[in-house]
């Protein structure tokens, strides 16, 4: 939410800039360490579990519509992502990937959920933690599969000429162990931040403009344009949130796959 500079006068400055960008992400409700973001994080966990619980509480041979929908989602993660990307042994990682996908998806969808309107994945804590977790998972998978040879394969993919080994080694080390988790986290985080900022600014300034029409006159009609644009971006964000959850899960699977099969 936009936080006001108390002396801001909408009649003069048209829109009140927040004191700094953090205020778009700091939520007002706060009890000790439990602010709205923390509550939403637990709400996301609860929603994921509730969806799975109601889908598989009494699984039926001929699934209900709800179970069929969840089935399709689960089958997609298991068959297309876990087994499709990693291979037959990917089934082991399917529960992790499913948890990742559903948790990030619900967290992302909070961005466009009316009355919530705040993606928990737009706080760096969550994407960073999940990216580091994926990092741990793929490094551990590599070590368990290949032993210490994993680090050799990690530094030098097969077929690298000896002369290039120092250079390639440094590039691979940085790209695999540093850039991967960083880009994974930042991609999700930045997409959701951008979406959230756009939605907040357009929808709230739209409403503010429209509400200010009696005071500022025709200038306030711009509010309809901002609000309309905000709604259009709201639809676009639906695509982005689902896509980013998918990309996060997919890349996690790809990283695990490269740990298990160094030849690729």
């Amino acid at each position, binding site marked *: *939410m*936009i*936080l*006001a*500079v108390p002396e*801001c006068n*909408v*009649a003069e400055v048209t829109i*009140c800039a*927040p*004191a*700094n*960008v*953090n*205020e778009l*992400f*700091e939520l*007002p409700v706060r009890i000790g*360490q439990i*602010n709205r*973001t*923390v509550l939403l*994080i*637990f709400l*996301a*966990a609860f929603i*994921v*579990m509730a969806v*799975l*619980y109601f889908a*598989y509480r009494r*699984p*039926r*041979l001929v*699934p209900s519509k709800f*179970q069929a929908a969840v*089935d399709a989602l*689960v089958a997609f993660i298991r068959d297309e992502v876990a087994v499709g990307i990693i291979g037959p042994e990917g089934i082991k990682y*399917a*529960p*992790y990937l*499913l*948890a990742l996908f*559903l*948790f990030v998806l619900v967290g992302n969808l909070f961005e466009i959920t009316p009355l919530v309107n705040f993606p*928990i994945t737009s*706080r*760096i*804590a*969550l994407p*960073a*933690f*999940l990216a580091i977790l994926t990092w741990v998972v793929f490094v551990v998978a590599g070590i368990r599969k290949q032993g210490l040879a994993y680090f050799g394969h990690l530094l030098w993919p097969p077929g690298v000429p000896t002369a290039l080994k120092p250079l390639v080694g440094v590039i691979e080390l940085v790209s695999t162990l540093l850039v991967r988790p960083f880009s994974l986290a930042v991609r999700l985080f930045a997409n959701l*931040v951008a979406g959230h900022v756009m939605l907040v600014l357009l929808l*709230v300034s739209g*409403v*503010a403009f429209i*509400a*200010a029409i009696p*005071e500022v006159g025709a200038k306030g009609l711009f509010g309809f344009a901002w609000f309309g644009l905000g709604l259009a971006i709201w639809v676009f964000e639906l695509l982005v949130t689902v896509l980013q959850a998918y990309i996060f899960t997919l890349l996690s699977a790809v990283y695990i796959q490269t740990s298990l099969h160094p030849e690729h």
Partner: protein
Amino acid sequence: MLFAQTLILAAEDKEGSGLDLLLPATNELIAGIIAFAIVFFFIRLWAWPAIERSLEQRQQAIAGQLEDAEKAKAEAESLLQDYKKQMEEARAKGAEIIEEARATAEKLKADILEKANAEASQIVAKAREEAEAERARVLAEARQEVANLSIDLAERVVGEALDRETQLGLVQRYLAELEQM
């Protein structure tokens, strides 16, 4: 104005630069770790086995149905074979019965014909016998008549009565001689 200001909520006490956005807040990090751990273990320990179980059940059900269908098909096949065989047998039997009936009829016909022929010839023979007997009777009668006539004639010629008994015997003898010639 008032509405715009209600949208615009009071700033928190924190003064910070935009960089804070890139640093994880400790409380959110801890909440995220706990929440994701709960989700992961819920899926790992409860949801995933349930998913696998439901999938397996469905697989088994489908396999069972396929098997049943296969069985039903085989049964139908064998039933059809049976019916065909029975049909074949019935047809053969029918043909046999018709053949038998034809043979019986043929035999019957032959029998009847034979019997009829025999009867006819019997009737003819009887008729012939009767005719023969009649002829013999007529002949005997005629002979008697001839003898009587001859005697009458002779009496008329002689002009007196002859010993009828003796003359009759004479005529008879003569006629018998004639017959033997």
